[in-house]
């Protein structure tokens, strides 16, 4: 790219590749792609310094549609491949795009370890609670009893909660958003991408063909105000069409109260910076039907990143041992000469 091109201000078009997008019409992935492409120009990072790494599944087609460097890898392994890349190239902004099957089933182990190491990358997990690309089998996030191609009598697997995994792995940035709230999605993406350390975002994403309206009970327009609560750091969790409800903690459990009825109750204040993840973990267990489902940033804390500590060790070894010298390396230990 010429210097002229480098000079221009980035727009969405700079991030749109020439590949034809091939998701099903109406797929939630379109919205996510569009928001990502619109959000990227906000960072001071040129397209050539972004790398999108994905595994296998519908979501994993994502890199083809981004005019950045991209790697569509193998099932579940994207976090491992991205880790290797980030270790050697801390200068790049590395993204991992994965799904509920790719990230939590076949690739669960890699996801956990990428997060616990705090590798500075942004992980987008598109959760549609179904295997789409293999045509409709239940996934690790599918609800118990789900009838699918592989579970005609209903699934007997208890589902897994992606955010619990992220928190148990001590991810330093953990958030949830949804494909239909473009503004919130953009906000969370921006926060995640600016976070120094691993960021994990669960995105509720609709699969129109195999699991349509999977999240409708929560996110449906007609009732979402009552069933969703947006998290804001330092503020109470207020929700309801008339902002008339809130959350308090009673006996270590969140509880819904009506503000009008209980004006003097101490409301819980969201603290995304809490050093330990207990509060965030509590939030992940607010699930529909009993509770409104939280969206937003659950946790955002600072810790040294893996690639930085790796580089620090190298610097310290160089300081201590001097820059590696091949001759010294080879000509060392107990040697003897033969004339």
């Amino acid at each position, binding site marked *: *790219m*010429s210097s002229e*091109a480098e000079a221009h201000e980035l727009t969405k078009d700079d991030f749109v*590749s020439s*590949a034809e997008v091939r998701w099903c019409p109406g797929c939630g992935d379109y919205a996510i792609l569009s928001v990502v492409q619109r959000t990227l120009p906000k960072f001071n990072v*040129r397209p*050539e*310094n972004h*790398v999108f*790494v994905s595994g*296998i599944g519908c979501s994993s087609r994502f890199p*083809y549609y*981004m*005019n*950045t*460097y*991209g*790697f*569509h*890898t*193998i099932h579940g*392994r994207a976090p*491992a*491949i991205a*880790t*290797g*890349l*980030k*270790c*050697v*190239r801390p*200068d*790049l902004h590395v993204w991992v795009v994965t799904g509920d099957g790719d990230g939590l089933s076949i690739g669960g*182990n*890699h996801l*956990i*370890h990428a997060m616990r190491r705090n590798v500075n990358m942004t992980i987008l997990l598109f959760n549609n609670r179904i295997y789409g690309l293999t045509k409709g089998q239940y996934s690790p996030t599918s609800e118990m009893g789900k009838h699918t191609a592989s579970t005609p009598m209903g699934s007997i697997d208890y589902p897994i909660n992606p955010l619990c995994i992220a928190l148990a792995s001590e991810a330093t940035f953990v958030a949830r958003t949804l494909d239909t709230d473009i503004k919130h999605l953009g906000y969370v993406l921006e926060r995640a991408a600016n976070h120094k350390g691993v960021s994990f975002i669960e995105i509720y994403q609709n699969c129109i063909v195999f699991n349509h309206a999977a999240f409708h009970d929560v996110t449906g327009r007609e009732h979402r105000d009552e069933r969703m609560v947006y998290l804001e750091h330092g503020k109470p969790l207020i929700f309801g069409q008339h902002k008339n409800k809130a959350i308090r903690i009673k006996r270590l459990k969140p509880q819904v109260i009506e503000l009008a009825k209980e004006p003097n109750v101490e409301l819980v204040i969201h603290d995304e910076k809490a050093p330990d993840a207990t509060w965030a973990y509590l939030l992940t267990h607010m699930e529909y039907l009993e509770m409104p489902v939280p969206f937003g940033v659950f946790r955002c804390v600072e810790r040294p990143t893996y690639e930085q500590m*790796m580089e620090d*060790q*190298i610097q310290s*070894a*160089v300081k*201590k*041992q*001097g*820059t*590696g010298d*091949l*001759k010294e*390396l*080879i*000509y*060392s*230990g*107990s*040697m*003897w*000469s*033969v*004339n």
Partner: protein
Amino acid sequence: MTPVSPEKNEAVNNAGPENAPVSKPKRTEKTLRTAIIRFAGDSGDGMQLTGDRFTDASAIMGNDISTLPDYPAEIRAPAGTLPGVSSFQVNIGSVATHTPGDRPQTLVAMNPAALKVHLPDVEEHGWVIVNTDAFTPGNLKKALWSANPLDGSTLKDYTVIKIPISTLTQKALQESKLSPSEVERCKNFYALGLIFWLYDRTPDSTLQWIEQKFSKKQDIAQANAAALRAGYSYADVTDLFPVRYQVKKAAIGPGVYRKISGNEALALGLVTAANLAGKDLFYGSYPITPASGILHELSKHKNFRVKTFQAEDEIAAMGAVIGASFGGHLGVTGTSGPGMCLKSEAIGLAIMVELPCVIIDVQRGGPSTGLPTKTEQADLLQAMFGRNGESPVAVVAPATPAECFDMAIEAVRIAFKFMTPVIILSDGYIANGAEPWKLPDVGKLPKIVVEHPKTGESFQPYERDPKTLAREWAIPGTPGLMHRIGGIEKANITGSVSYDPENHEKMCRLRTEKVARIADDIAPAEVIGPKKGKLLVVGWGNTYGPILTAIENLRAAGKAVSMCHLRYLNPFPKNFSEVFSQFEKILVPELNLGQFLFLLRGRFPKIRAEGFNKVQGQPFKVAEIESKIRELL
């Protein structure tokens, strides 16, 4: 060379025991061309360390050396039992020693179990030095001796030296402040002192080593040094040893040498290769025996900007390596057979995206967990074919520990030049065995040229070099060259996703042809011995030493036999068929049930070859190969 047996019986008879503690006993001095010594004891007795020190001292004194550490898979099997025995064999020579030797001349047995396990291997009339203190009823029972072998006629065919090593160590360390159990742990140095004296080695280098190793534990350092000196002096004054051996300097080529194991040599080779290519090395690995040594060694060299990554599993290790290669670095992983199984899928990805990387398989006994600490060559076909689809990779195999250095560099060179994964097949024997390594002239090692397309150049992700068929390697961060790669089939040249039938066949053929063209870029196969004749022994990997020794022995005895040892298994050197077709018969010894033979027959259907196979977790003995060759001549 086969070790020349000393006439020990005569020596013993001539010397005659004389009880004269004040003056040194009379004894015969004998010069040996080679000597095989085996240290055996409980896995907590420090036998690996003892063997290692003896080897080091011998190497520094100018002998050729070859070693065989052999230890159980359990870190500490129940003490005193047969499965808990750990041993270390070394062959030292004033002539070339290509193998650790078939049968030890001297066995040091620190307990009854060690004696039980290793006695059958000791050569006739060989020395058996035992720690009598360990021959308690309990230990004898654990070792399944029905009677104490030191009393009966069990050992009548050997020259047995009975020494209460534990007691003598305690005496020597009377002044020490160490606890009794710590004192007991010094007995291996006492035993080492005895053997140092018997083979006339100077203990100086070991004393220095102790000083350094235990610099923070002065008590232990002093005790070990005292035990070593005491053992040495005891052998000197006792009349138990009527003979003392000399093994003179080996007539090896001039140069500077150091002792090296295969795993160390691979690690140093990788650091060197990265340096020659001007690339940082990223080594992603998951701990597995017998490959972990490479990870340990590389993690010491961070000042070369080596990044070592202990992954969550074998798959992640390979994945991270691919990520590092995508990022423009030298990605290398190392594992053993079970780990190779797990890496297969990701190796397939590296083949599809045509990124350079190196995969080291330090083979061990299989299948499954198999024999974790023992050697085998049974991953060859896995390395060749163990992936889905048409998935060619380059495969190379060092023949000796020191050669691992060169083959690591060679694997990296091929990976970069041909944009391909390269598999290095080492094995447990090469990995842990050691030999003298003639140090290269660092300044003369050829640079490895790596080029990346630059901004402004015309670039297509799958455009190829017309000669090597290597694709271009544009790295992230390069403006204007943004592209996407992945595991889905690529359209030729553009690299876009393609499901086109014709294109798929074209790409499969291109990938195969690319690996085949490596043959234009590697050293030809060489024959040792006459270039033509009745029998050619063809080998790869660790069979080199035993085959070479066998044919040297046979040729010295007037037999016409040749060998050809391959370092390149895929592709084969171009001249290979020409080489073997000059012989009537071909013998292929390998530590598997005929995998290389299967490859040869597939590639050269008319080849007149037969296999000679062994899968006992142990390398070939020279005698085994020698007798097989005699059968065929």
